[in-house]
């Protein structure tokens, strides 16, 4: 059996790598933390989810300072949608305390496979739809963002659909201890037609608040264990900051494919272990 010091060092290293690769590929490190803990370190999935949630807050808040300087995120879209994500997160965290660990593992595996699919799917931005939308106007969600050709305006659409999808993203976040950035971005750019750059940074902004909403439930239930959350939080934070520094402009395609493949393997294993009752 491992000692506390070995466990802490190995887990810090693993979390650093997860955070580093997550930042480099833009997939986020949080999504591999739970399988890393549950499959590699043999930690109970409830502890894994608690630790992962904490690391999600750290990376989201740590990256925010860099994002806002560019003036891309839309604070009103973020705040409005946070009503949906935070309520969803509390609901998700409450569901998490009621379902079995096997079920959690299976749902987690499916989300991993979906994230991998999103990462290989060619990203094509829908043409901007500038027709006004009354609800978006009433909520002052339309905005502008800097591009190479100067400041561009964009109009937001299908607000109720986006709001509903965000509730789902929040529920997943609270249920599995992940940021669900992929679902958030999807809701914003596919449903609401927010430009990519704006949706990515706004989503990052929302992730921390969403995760904070479910952390209260997790803390009270004892899911957040200092011996596990400590190396995960410090490792992922250091890794993602290092990754963001290296990143700058290299959007390595092959790295995305490799990391995507790792996610698929982990997803399949989570589903398998969930069904066979090994989680």
């Amino acid at each position, binding site marked *: 059996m*491992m*000692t*506390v*010091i070995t466990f*802490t060092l190995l887990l810090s290293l693993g979390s650093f790598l997860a955070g580093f690769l997550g930042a480099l590929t833009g997939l986020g490190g949080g999504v591999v933390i739970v399988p890393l803990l549950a499959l590699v*370190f*043999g*930690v*109970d999935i*409830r*502890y894994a989810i608690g630790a992962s949630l*904490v690391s999600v*807050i*750290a990376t*989201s*808040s*740590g990256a*925010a*300072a*860099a994002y*806002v*300087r560019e*003036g891309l995120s839309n*604070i009103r879209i973020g*705040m*409005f949608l*946070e*009503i949906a994500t*935070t*309520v969803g*997160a*509390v609901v998700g*965290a409450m569901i998490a305390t009621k379902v079995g660990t096997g079920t959690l593992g299976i749902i987690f595996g499916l989300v991993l496979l979906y994230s991998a699919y999103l990462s290989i799917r060619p990203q094509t931005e829908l043409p901007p739809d500038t027709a*006004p939308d009354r609800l978006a106007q009433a909520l*002052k969600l*339309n*905005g502008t963002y800097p591009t190479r050709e100067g*400041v561009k*305006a964009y109009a937001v659409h299908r607000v109720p659909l986006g709001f509903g999808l965000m509730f789902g993203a929040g529920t997943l976040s609270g249920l599995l201890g992940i940021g669900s950035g992929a679902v958030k971005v999807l809701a914003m750019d596919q449903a609401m037609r927010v430009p990519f750059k704006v949706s990515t940074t706004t989503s990052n902004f929302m992730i*921390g*608040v969403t995760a*904070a*909403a479910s*952390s*209260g*439930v997790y*803390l*009270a*239930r*004892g*899911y957040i*264990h*200092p*011996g*596990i*959350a*400590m190396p995960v*939080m*410090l490792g992922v*934070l250091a890794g993602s900051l290092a990754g963001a520094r290296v990143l700058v402009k290299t959007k390595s395609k092959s790295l995305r494919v490799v990391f995507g493949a790792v996610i698929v393997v982990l997803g399949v294993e989570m589903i398998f272990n969930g069904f066979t009752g090994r989680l």
Partner: protein
Amino acid sequence: MKPQSWNDHRIEVIIGVLLRAGVLIAAAVVLIGAGIYLLRHGSEPVDFRTFRGASPQLRTFSGIISGSIHGSGKSIIQLGLLLLIATPVARVAFSAIAFWLERDYLYVGITLAVLAVLAYSLLGSAMR
């Protein structure tokens, strides 16, 4: 379409700095707790395979604070994690003030609604 005001951007920059500072302070507190925890418990065996939950003292605000005062490494780590959780909450609170200064009362209301959900979760479950 009304362009986003200069004020919005300034608010965002302040919020960004606030978040970064919160995370760094939280990480520093977690590191201090980690040092004490590893010195005292480093050579003990770990067993996280079965779920028992963190001990009751590590689950409430009052328990974490009193444990930290007594120099418990685990409690200080939890205190750092509480500070980390508090950073996005502080961001929401700060946004409410910023919208108020901009006289955007619709968004003051929206922001307070988000704050209410956060308070319900954090105070409701961890305050006891």
